[in-house]
């Protein structure tokens, strides 16, 4: 069994239905449709337009119908934009309606809340635009000059009129590709960019920009592409006049729709661009061109100065070289003159010296010198011969004297028999003060002293043999050393 929801009254029922509708998101969606107007009525709260379309059932033809509501503040704008004097002129024609569904409490039914009504087909839109253009032309407000952003000061502050959620605004920001140091300030002044509020919204934004007292370099009106009915609300005479006049305060750049789309702002803006992307790229290019202009000038200036200084250096070098050259030449001339004079003097001096010498050195003088040298040599030889004779005589005398002394010593030694053995290579033995002439004079353990020609030995008797026998062995010691004979 189906669940039954019970309500105490219609208000409860309405609130339940309204809540369900809101949850579904139906009233948040935006719709555009084509329909014939069957009735239209102006009211102080707005325009009430009935649109209807027949459809067939098995019971015959019936009509589907909905009320289109346009708030009063938009109603007059829409009628004006469509070139209609009253709402009655909507009746009997097909129009494009754009807006949202609204659940109307009083009737508990859907009403279409329209922000845009546009004629079907571009011809009507074109016709209306031409009328506005003619009016702007009469007022001399159309932009006839072709401007370039290079005419402007470097763009550092941009006011952009767009909708925060519009794709055009995003495209603009995305394509503003400038190095951070030079990136311009971008301030958004929000405005509806579609529907009947478009023109009033943009005019309001222009007024705000002026009121902000910020000296923006350019104002950009940016909106992405869309149907003709979306863009037709840019075709507004008042908006055209405002933009044209605003150019005197600050240049307005339009970037609305696509390449093929032309709206009134495009004809009065300081410069028209096809899309918001194109505006951003042109601004980026202006900034980059200015940077390049300065960079190039800076580089060229460096080159100019380097060339100038090189030229100046060369010029200076040449003049210095000329001075040095002159100086060297002058000095060389002086030196050459002095050298020649000196050479002459030297020559004269040499000639004079030679002639003097020639006079002084004669054959007699040479002969005299030769004799002197020979005499000197002869004297020296004679002296040396005499000296040799004296030395020889002196030596013979000394040798003879020494011979005599030696003979005397020998004789005295021979006179002392006990020591005679030493003269012939033998030794002399003494025991205390007595000479040892026989083994019998000694016994075991005696200490003896032996005198030889080159020194003495202390001896100890360690072995004794028969008197008939000779001592065969004597251990001798000298100091700490024991000798055996």
């Amino acid at each position, binding site marked *: 069994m189906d669940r039954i929801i019970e309500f105490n009254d219609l208000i409860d029922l309405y609130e339940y239905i309204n809540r369900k509708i809101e949850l579904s998101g139906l009233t948040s969606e935006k719709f555009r449709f084509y329909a014939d107007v069957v009735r239209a009525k102006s009211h102080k709260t707005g325009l009430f337009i009935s649109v209807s379309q027949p459809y067939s059932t098995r019971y015959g033809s019936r009509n589907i119908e909905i009320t289109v509501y346009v708030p009063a503040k938009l109603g007059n704008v829409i009628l004006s934009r469509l070139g209609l004097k009253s709402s009655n002129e909507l009746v009997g024609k097909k129009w494009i309606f754009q807006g949202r569904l609204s659940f109307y409490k009083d009737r508990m039914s859907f009403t279409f809340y329209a922000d845009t009504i546009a004629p079907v087909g571009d011809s009507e839109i074109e016709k209306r635009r031409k009328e506005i253009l003619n009016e702007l032309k009469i007022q001399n407000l159309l932009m006839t000059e072709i401007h370039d952003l290079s005419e402007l*000061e*470097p763009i*550092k502050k941009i006011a952009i009129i767009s909708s925060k959620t519009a794709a055009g605004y995003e495209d603009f920001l995305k394509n503003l590709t400038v190095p951070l140091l030079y990136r311009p*300030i971008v301030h958004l002044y929000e405005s509806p960019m579609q529907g009947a509020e478009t023109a009033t919204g943009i005019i309001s934004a222009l007024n705000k920009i002026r009121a902000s*007292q*910020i000296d923006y370099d350019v104002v950009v009106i940016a909106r992405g592409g869309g149907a003709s009915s979306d863009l037709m609300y840019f075709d507004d005479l008042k908006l055209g006049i405002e933009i044209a006049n605003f150019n005197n305060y600050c240049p307005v750049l339009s970037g609305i729709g696509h390449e093929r789309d032309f709206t009134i702002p495009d004809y009065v803006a300081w410069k028209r661009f096809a899309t918001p992307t194109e505006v951003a790229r042109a601004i980026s290019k202006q900034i980059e061109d200015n940077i390049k202009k300065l960079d190039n*000038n800076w580089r060229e200036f460096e080159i100019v100065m380097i060339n100038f200084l090189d030229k*100046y250096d060369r010029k200076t070098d040449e003049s210095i070289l000329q001075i040095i050259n002159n100086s060297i030449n002058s000095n060389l001339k002086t030196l050459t003159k002095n050298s020649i004079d000196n050479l002459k003097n030297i020559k004269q001096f040499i000639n004079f010296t030679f002639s003097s010498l020639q006079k002084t050195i004669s054959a007699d003088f040479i002969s005299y010198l030769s004799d002197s040298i020979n005499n000197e040599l002869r004297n020296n030889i004679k002296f040396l011969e005499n000296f040799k004779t004296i030395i020889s005589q002196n030596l013979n005398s000394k040798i003879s004297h020494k011979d005599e002394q030696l003979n005397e010593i020998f004789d005295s030694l021979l006179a002392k028999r006990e020591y005679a053995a030493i003269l012939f290579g033998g030794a002399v033995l003494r025991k205390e003060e007595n000479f040892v002439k026989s083994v019998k004079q000694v016994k075991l353990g005696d200490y003896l002293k032996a005198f030889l020609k080159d020194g003495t030995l202390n001896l100890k008797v360690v072995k004794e043999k028969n008197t008939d026998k000779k001592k065969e062995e004597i251990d001798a010691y000298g100091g700490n050393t024991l000798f055996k004979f």
Partner: protein
Amino acid sequence: MHMEEILSLNSEEMEKLSFNDLVEKIEEIKDYFHQNEVDIELALKLYGKAVELLAIARAKLINFKKEKEEIDEKYREFLERLEREENGGEEENLF
């Protein structure tokens, strides 16, 4: 403009010149070097002036942080004031 006139510009006068005027003067000095035999003393003066002009022109390109912050602050304050005014006169909702 003759070089004497460019050389006589003081800082304040140069600051007042537009970016394009500054560039024009820089180029005039450059052309003067190309077209004339310039004395070293004048050359150095002109070079110094060109460097000054280039520096001022460069400053006109740059968004200095402090300047940017001041402008952003002015913008924020302006929007807040507008919002307060708009909230004071809110329209009646028809639906």
